[in-house]
């Protein structure tokens, strides 16, 4: 059928004569333009701006009371547990999942660490390893149910939350292990509470751990193949599967890693509150999800940056302390935090829109 072939070729061949790379008018940018451009490329800077803005605001309102090294490091210390858990939550949410069991895994891991040391007399290192293993295992089970049995993450982790929390209470018999006992017999459990001074500011190992964790995860998500797969799975799991990502394996890994991070949060929790208390961490779910969403990660998966989560957690921390310092009572603080969560995200949206 060469005649038809030619006829089709005849006009199409006109296309091959010349080629030029597209060049559109490049409009000039001033400072604002450049800022917009930076924000456009690094959306996690948006919550950073909100964070800096809120620090500035409270700084102006409260002066040195707020701008003291004490207050500022206090925020970091208050945020550390939520920050660590929110890092785990970010991973899961990036895959378009959600993990309601983070708080339960955290507190159960800490209980395992404590009880294994005190009830069974294991060396703290082993007990801690067991705690971390338990957290990872629960996470992996979540992942298995989500990836293999194809259950919705919300349901899996909701069920797991109840299961782990109930197990936690049944196993620990609701008994607290006292700070003094831990200090005397297994100080390693309190490692994350160890303090050191950095120019007047008191940091704890837990705070440093949180910061390192977030930066390591940011690196992994951005600069390794695994990280890209996490985004792809969250973005469109079908497309990811078709284009060669082992979606199931990635999901299981993400949930397991989230479990491990929560177990670390459990260890950090012992450092923070001194004791091992089975009733801790009941708000960790909602607080971690809040941090993630304020930080700009989409609950529909695949979009956002884990640095944003850190800023999100800090924004809430700044507001909470700032309001208390301004003398708002507990109920009013609660109300105002609600307002400010909405406002923070509204500002965030607005900046994004402006930076187009």
């Amino acid at each position, binding site marked *: 059928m060469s005649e038809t072939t030619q006829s089709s070729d005849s006009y199409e061949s006109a296309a091959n004569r010349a080629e030029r790379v597209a060049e559109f008018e490049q409009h000039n940018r001033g400072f604002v333009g450049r800022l917009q451009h930076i924000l456009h490329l690094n959306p996690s800077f948006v919550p950073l701006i909100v964070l800096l803005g809120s620090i500035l605001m409270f700084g102006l309102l409260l002066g040195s009371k707020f701008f003291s090294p004490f207050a500022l490091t206090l925020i970091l210390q208050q945020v550390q547990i939520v920050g660590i858990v929110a890092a785990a939550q970010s991973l899961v949410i990036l895959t378009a999942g959600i993990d309601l069991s983070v708080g339960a895994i955290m507190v159960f891991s800490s209980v395992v660490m404590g009880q294994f040391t005190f009830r069974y007399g294991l060396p703290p290192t082993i007990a801690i390893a067991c705690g971390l293993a338990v957290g990872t295992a629960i996470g992996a089970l979540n992942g298995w149910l989500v990836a293999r049995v194809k259950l919705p993450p919300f349901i899996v982790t909701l069920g797991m939350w109840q299961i782990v929390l109930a197990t936690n209470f049944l196993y620990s018999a609701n008994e607290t292990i006292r700070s003094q006992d831990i200090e005397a017999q297994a100080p390693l459990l309190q490692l994350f509470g160890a303090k050191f001074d950095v120019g007047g500011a008191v940091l704890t190992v837990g705070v440093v751990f949180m910061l390192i964790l977030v930066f390591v995860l940011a690196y992994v998500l951005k600069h390794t193949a695994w990280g890209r*797969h996490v985004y792809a799975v969250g973005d*469109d799991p079908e*497309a990811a599967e078709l284009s060669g990502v082992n979606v199931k394996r990635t999901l299981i890994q993400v949930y397991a890693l989230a479990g491990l991070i929560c177990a670390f949060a459990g260890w950090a929790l012992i450092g923070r509150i001194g004791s091992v208390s089975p009733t801790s961490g009941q708000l960790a779910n909602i607080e971690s999800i809040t941090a993630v969403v304020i930080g700009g990660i989409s609950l529909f998966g695949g979009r956002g940056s884990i640095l944003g989560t850190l800023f999100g957690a800090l924004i809430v921390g700044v507001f909470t302390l700032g309001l208390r310092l301004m003398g708002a009572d507990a109920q009013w603080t609660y109300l105002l935090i609600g307002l400010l969560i909405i406002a923070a995200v509204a500002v965030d949206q607005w900046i994004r829109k402006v930076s187009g």
Partner: protein
Amino acid sequence: MEPILKGRNLVKRYGRVTALDHCDFDLMPGEILAVIGDNGAGKSSLIKAVSGAVIPDEGEVFLNGEKVSFSSPMDARDAGIETVYQTLAMSPALSITDNMFMGREIRKSGFMGKWLRQLDRAAMEKFARDKLNDLGLMTIQNINQAVETLSGGQRQGVAVARAAAFGSKVIILDEPTAALGVKESRKVLELIQDVKSRGIPIILISHNMPHVFEVADRIHVHRLGRRLCVIDPKKHTMSDAVALMTGAKEPDAQDAAA
């Protein structure tokens, strides 16, 4: 000669809809096989069944004469079958480069790559840029643009570039030029010829008869979920092909047997 990729008696049902109805399929080594048929005839379902994207309800698939049962597209890809799906299978929020290298990323050499498993973005970007230029997709201004911001044709170009760059045994293209411009379509046809000259067989699904007749060695006519016949483009006219696929004409006995 033994077909390199063979399907026998493939059945795929979706609820009340039967997409594949005891369908056979053969791809010979080194050939360009076009698959044509009406909308909804089951062409995409067929290639999904042979590339691991759906698991057929019945029937068997053979690669190089050996029975294979791909449980995921990854299995097929590992066996050297690269596919451009009609839906393109790209992650909208990720960049062009990320999408092209999804699942086979290049790591940096040395410590950063080996131990910190860092990706070699520069190398990947260069490779991606080159492949897109080969296809004449010059209007893509920014190789790190998210795929969701590309025009329909640009997106398709990226998917074709990916398959052509990585396919080693069989390349399957499901309507690769549907959204492409004249120039870009030409480039894809050239690319197909080029891949064929490297000895890699190609399955091409297309509704563009001139294109099909230009490049195909054999044409598989698909109708109502099964292979109606296979015709030789040198012995039949486009009108014949169209008449066959729309049911206006019955196939000759020897074609139907093929």
